[in-house]
């Protein structure tokens, strides 16, 4: 379905062919998210399409989205590590080379995409949780 009612001109013809080519190239590319998973979840929403290329397009789009989020989280993590290193330069550098995806970084990254993920600061299992042990004895 086209938005415009005008017959496709040469420019648009290129766009159509570009799109068609892109969709054809999608068949060669195997997205990380498997087709069966995509089909299952879009079917839950009512998406009905027998065309595999569309499924692939959706899978690739999701993969792109997740990789963007992960990249942002990685930048957050690296920024934090570099900041930590700067503070404790006199002591031995806490070169935590392992890059771990933490909730903090993820929540910051997702916030830009409109997803609010909050992490609890602490869990109060008992009324005395978080209280200084010295004062607890009183």
């Amino acid at each position: 379905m086209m938005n415009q009612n005008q017959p496709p001109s040469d420019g648009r013809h290129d766009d159509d062919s570009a799109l068609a080519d892109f969709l054809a190239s999608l068949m060669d590319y195997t997205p990380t998210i498997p087709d069966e998973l995509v089909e299952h979840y879009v079917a839950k929403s009512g998406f009905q399409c027998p065309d595999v290329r569309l499924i692939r397009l959706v899978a690739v789009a999701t993969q792109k989205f997740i990789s963007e989020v992960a990249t942002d989280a990685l930048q957050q993590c690296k920024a934090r590590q570099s900041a930590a290193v700067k503070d404790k330069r006199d002591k031995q550098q806490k070169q935590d080379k392992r890059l771990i995806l933490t909730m903090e970084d993820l929540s910051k990254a997702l916030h830009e995409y409109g997803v609010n993920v909050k992490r609890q600061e602490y869990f109060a299992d008992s009324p005395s949780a978080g209280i200084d042990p010295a004062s607890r004895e009183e």
Partner: protein
Amino acid sequence: MSDGGGESGRDNEQDARRKSGGRGGDDFGRAIAKIAVAQICENVGFQSFQQSALESLSDVAIRYLRDLGKTAHFYANLAGRTHCNVFDVIQGLEDLGSSQGFSGASDVNRCLASSGTVREISQYVSLEQEIPFARPVPRFPVTRNRKPTPSFLQIGETPPGNHIPPWLPAFPDPHTYIQTPVWNERATDPRTDKVEQARQRRKAERSLLNLQQRLACNGSVAPAQVDPADAGKLKRAAESNPFLASPLQQGEKDVSPVVCPAKLAKNMAVENQVSVLEAFAPAIEAVKSGVCESVDAGKKVLPNKRPTVHFKFGIGKKALGAPVDLSLHSKSAGKTASWFGKDEEKDDKKRRAEKILKESMENQQEFAQ
């Protein structure tokens, strides 16, 4: 979404897992999504994840998928279709990416085919290396083939009522919904049970008695007590087994007469009463009465009174009443019974000669009675 941090206690994680597991039972799809997201993150550069962070991100991915499908479906419906189009998907992508922004978003007259989102995706595809999913994924969800209830036509029934067409599924069997009284097929009439029991007991006594007599008497001819009721059975058995042949009529064959053990018990004043004799007293009575009856009726009968066999009971020695001695000694031919004590030394022939003499003597006595 709120989820605990990775360093939280095990209990909290388990609770969270239980909660997420209860959300529709979509565990398999979630697990696959977690694997896929982990692979993407690894490709980006991460080396490890926090559990909660991974679960949150996979949740986000699933939600993105569903939102994209929903939006595409919405646009298809808007255009009056049920099946989605590539342009529906592109429009959905534009909707979801509008918060981030894509090139050409502000262009009101933009063409979908050259949408900024598609271009970004094609860039991504060309730049990023291909990471196939780690494991083969089966087609899911698996639907179970249920066997439908067969219709009336299929089971060959006619529906009970003209208003029911035969292609409808058949009614369930009446025993599944109507409680019918359960009848115990075996008659548990206590009276008949008792009668049956008594009859079997009598039968057992009778056969035991017969066996005893057979062992007590000469082994040559078995003067078995013929119960009128068992006559038919004996006839049938006789065809197969000569030993089970019905006894001969009185005077049919010249046999040495033998006395009925009951007679012996009555005649002899035996000090030691054998317990078996006592036990058989009622049966013996019955036998005697049966004997009289059979004699009167003229049916096959007891061997008529044969002379008593005299036994010598050793004083102080353990003596068994000969007729009730069921030991193997008594089975030998020509011996009525074995007796203990000094009589064991006697020769077989001598014993037999004595017996014959006595029998002839007794015969005269009994016939006189």
